[in-house]
């Protein structure tokens, strides 16, 4: 082959209509690409979920056992021993709903963070919009969440039968758990996108995540209603702390789920919180998607 200069080669490429590789596609094209990979996201997600628990004797049962054990510990320590559930009658339902749903957030954040970094092998051998990875990761956690939600509902129902607890009625309102979890899912995908990009570019951040998550756990009222402890803060802090604690996304989603299942005055259906839930989900998903897309051409380089 005769030697050619760089300009000649580029002219040749243009002449035959070749496209340049490794360039970030326009946003709209990218969205269509990701949408076309829907089946791949689903299959990769469900298979990952299945493979995760496959090497144990109890197998898929662990997907349910794990959050139950987790919730039992918190019920024992925070609900019974410390008794920190101010103003909440059904402590068990409160903690179980909190723990089961927060686990989904936690897994999505961790999974999203790892989704690019841990799968560089896959990124370096196949061509697909990288957004598939965080999406399928969250999908895999949703897959394990669904059976455990059934168990969660049963525990909440059963807690009403215990002595000292008001009976928990099974109403049509329970169906609202589905949109609540749906919104949480959309929100989690957004968070996973953001984490994926951050950790792919700066792997060190992976070490900070667990601390941020623990802070979020306490600040969202997962195991005790943290908002009710605000009055122990100095006066000038109370106002804005309450606003943040009450209206930050994770707290909103937990409220929506509790309002659906628990029959208590502290958790009445609140249209404002539903709107807020929708807004948070859309904002995080759209922002996360764009943030992730802007790094598309950089994933897999190092």
């Amino acid at each position: 082959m005769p030697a050619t200069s760089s300009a000649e080669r580029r002219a040749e490429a243009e002449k035959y209509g070749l496209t340049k590789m490794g360039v970030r596609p326009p946003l709209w094209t990218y969205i269509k690409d990701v949408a076309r990979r829907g089946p791949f996201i689903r299959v990769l997600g469900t298979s990952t979920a299945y493979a995760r628990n496959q090497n144990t004797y109890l197998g898929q049962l662990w997907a349910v056992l794990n959050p139950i054990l987790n919730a039992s510990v918190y019920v024992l320590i925070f609900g019974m021993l410390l008794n920190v559930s101010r103003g909440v009658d059904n402590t068990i339902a409160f903690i179980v709903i909190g723990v089961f749903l927060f686990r989904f957030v936690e897994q999505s954040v961790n999974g999203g963070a790892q989704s690019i970094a841990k799968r560089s092998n896959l990124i370096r051998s196949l061509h697909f919009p990288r957004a598939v990875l965080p999406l399928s990761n969250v999908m895999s956690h949703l897959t394990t969440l669904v059976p455990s939600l059934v168990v969660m509902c049963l525990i909440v129902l059963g807690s009403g039968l215990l002595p000292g607890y008001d009976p928990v009625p099974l109403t049509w309102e329970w169906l609202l758990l589905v949109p609540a979890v749906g919104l949480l899912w959309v929100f989690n995908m957004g968070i996973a996108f953001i984490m994926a990009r951050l950790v792919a570019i700066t792997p060190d951040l992976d070490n900070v995540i667990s601390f941020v998550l623990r802070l979020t756990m306490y600040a969202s009222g997962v195991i005790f209603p943290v908002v009710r402890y605000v009055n122990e803060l100095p006066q000038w802090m109370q106002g804005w702390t309450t606003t943040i604690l009450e209206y930050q996304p994770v707290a909103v989603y937990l409220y929506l789920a509790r309002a659906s299942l628990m029959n208590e005055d502290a958790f009445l259906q609140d249209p404002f919180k539903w709107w807020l839930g929708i807004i948070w989900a859309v904002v995080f998903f759209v922002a996360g998607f764009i943030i992730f897309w802007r790094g598309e051409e950089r994933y897999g380089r190092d």
Partner: protein
Amino acid sequence: MTDDVSEADAHLDFDMEDEADDAGEHAEAIPLGDPCLVVDDLHIVFRVFGGKTAESARAQGIHVQDAEPPRRSLVKRLLGAGRQHVGAVSEVHAVRGVSFMARHGESIGIVGINGSGKSTLLRAITGLIPPHSGSVYVDGEPALLGVNAALMPQMTGAKNIEIGGLALGMTPKQVDERFDEVVEFADIGDFVDMPMKTYSSGMAARLRFAISSAAIPDILMVDEALATGDAAFKARSKARIAEVRQQAGTVFLVSHSISTIEAMCTRVLWMHQGQLVMDGPVEEVTAAYREFVRAHRQARSGGQAGGRRRKRNGGGGSQGSGGRARRQDKARAPDA
């Protein structure tokens, strides 16, 4: 070097195997079409955290540079004592300024010793590793014959065919249609319903090849895929590669076996230390490469590295590439 590249190369110390059943065969020449791939002054740089110090890597002939700016503050210098463990980032320049053009229907082999950047080049022209500088232009969608990374050993063969097919960009319907064909091509029989981790290595390799060639791509990249599998399977893979070429596709093949390259390729690229040493018709390049490997081997055992290498450059290669080879040797001199 990256993990996957060194993994692929680790088990082979030297890169010249002759396989009897390939000897004497030659790839059929197909009239060449329009250019379908243009690589223009491509550079690939990896970021490496911790690990080897730049000095020790450089001593082995790998092109490494520190990622830090040359002027360092007092704080940085104080921290410098623990640099290999805290904040040690270096860059490996795996591909250094490669340019070439490929046409429809061409079958191109890539040869070179371990760590010469073959696999990285292959991944870069597939668009999997973003270039540091330079560019790659393609017509259609290139596919690397390396679906392994998407497959899950815990899942059954059937599930993996689905995952792999979707990962390659097929629609669920296409996966359904090709399913039987893939099972038959892989020749795994009833094992299709067993987890893939129970497969013998030959079976797993056959299934991987069958999945990744289920979709016939415009540009097919094969990286050592033919190293495993029995003779019958090898023949079938060759037929598959020929099929891609017949449909005006282009095939790239990285193999440690020169006779495989000779049997299946019409053109060969010879990589050394991230640069293109030679690019030309298969006989010419493989002859020069054989000569080089022989000299390199003797140099290793005899310990007279410099002298042998220089001798090789005088003899082998066409005129143009000889010049390039010499230039590249000079670049190495300070490292040795």
